[in-house]
């Protein structure tokens, strides 16, 4: 699936929720289901700043595609990271750099997107794109 297709899929999943409760229950679900990050990556180096809860993000390049793993001590945050990973993991640096994250808005999590939001969704997105940028530079050289 392309990044856009995954985003579409998520949007249609979220469109089924009747109220905020369903939506957050689903996010919590996804937070709990997130694959565990390797414990050795839960270091300050992998910490994303600007979040009220701690978020660790790790990335690897395998056969030209980036895979992300992450963790957080807050479960809703984890749910949101999991969404991001589902969208972006398994794609090439170029694809990730070109993609937008408009689906966040469309699934009604826009308020989490504010640059001043303390749970730092923006910081996560930035960090993912930064990783993609770095891998791209490495490939280009």
């Amino acid at each position, binding site marked *: 699936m392309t990044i856009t297709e995954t985003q579409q899929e998520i949007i249609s999943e979220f469109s089924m929720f009747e109220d905020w409760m369903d939506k957050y229950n689903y996010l*919590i679900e996804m937070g709990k289901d997130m694959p565990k990050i390797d414990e050795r990556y839960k270091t300050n180096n992998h910490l994303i700043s600007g979040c009220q*809860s*701690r978020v660790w993000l790790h990335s690897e390049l395998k056969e030209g595609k980036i895979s992300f793993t992450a963790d957080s*001590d*807050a479960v*809703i*945050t984890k749910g949101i990271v999991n969404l991001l990973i589902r969208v972006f993991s398994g794609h090439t640096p170029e694809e990730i750099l070109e993609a937008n994250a408009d689906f966040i808005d469309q699934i009604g999590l826009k308020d989490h997107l504010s640059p001043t939001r303390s749970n730092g969704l923006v910081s996560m997105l930035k960090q993912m794109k930064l990783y993609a940028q770095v891998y791209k530079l490495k490939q280009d050289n």
Partner: protein
Amino acid sequence: MTKFTAGEMLELRAQFPALHQNVYGKPLVYLDNAATTQKPQSVIDRIVAYYSHENTNIHRGVHYLSQQATEAYENARKTVADFINAAVAHEIIFTRGTTESVNLLAGSLKQFLLQEGDSVLISGMEHHSNLVPWQQICLQNKTKLLVAELTNKGEIDLEQFKQLLSQKPKLVAITHISNALGTINPVKEMIRLAHDFGIPVLVDGAQSVAHTTVDVQDLDCDFFVFSGHKMFAPMGIGVLYAKTEWLEKMPPWQFGGEMVDQVSFEETTFNQLPFKFEAGTPYVAGVLGLEAAIKFIRQYDMKSLEAYENGIVRQALEMLQTIPGMRFIGEPIHRAGVISFVVDGTHPSDIGTLVDKMSVAVRTGHHCAQPVMTRFDVPGTVRASFAFYNTEEEVEKLVKAVEKAVSMLR
């Protein structure tokens, strides 16, 4: 002491427009009062009146508006002095807020009081604003920072405090009420102890002025600081109270505007008190708004407001503690309008996010008191903080919202 009836409380509450609004389609339950309080209509009206008919720059102006506004400004200083029972009006220095008051004090004292080898004593529950300024000055001047430790209940360990006093720090800087724990410190007693060693004391009153009567002469503190916005007044205005003898010794910290007397390129002589410490165009509207807030509070019997608020807080504590896994951070014997907690198996920020969706505004995080979080080994807390306009119904909504959030998260 007259007791407030529920009806009287609703009348008082009706005067705060911001409390009467919906958030996510339901009535806002505002429990973030330790961060900032809402403003009564009379405060808003005072600002409007000022900008609509009185606005001008003050001091040194000979024209009518300037005379009037100068008098209003200086009268407000007297009102503030009365409010905390300062001996004279010039002991009230207007600042932007508690943080600036502490920075002013630190910036001035470091020029003559805090030298290499000296020490400053703070407590383990200080807000960053009464911690980082001292810490940084200690780093600059090679002064030592002593910290009075907290008990498991979140109270200052008085025995250890006394031991630290015997190291003769040059200043004690302690909070009156902790914004992170709710603890009311026995400041009067602590000041007496410090004075026995001849040590001056700064009291951070940011959390106390809206909750209890403050009498700086009775406390006998040397310095007292607070913010208007936490006591129903506008943002951007605050106070540094200091005893005259200190203000006379203290060199000014900021320069320019009304704080000078004579200026040549070679030297400058400074104006008398309180102007020496108020550089730049004064924030007249803020000062008049602060006066309006004081007048608002004074319509009521402070002891009754306090008793009412304490009742609300007690109710909240009792109801919250029935939630399984509830852990209060800070269980002091004397508590003001702040309840900080974590719930086992959940993260504070998740609870904050969810109760917000239920229209309940609480704060989560470290509350600018990171060392407190470290001390109690939590990533942060959920903090519900109250003012005398909160109702029993709101407490019930808070508890329901937290219960629901916890059940969703587990």
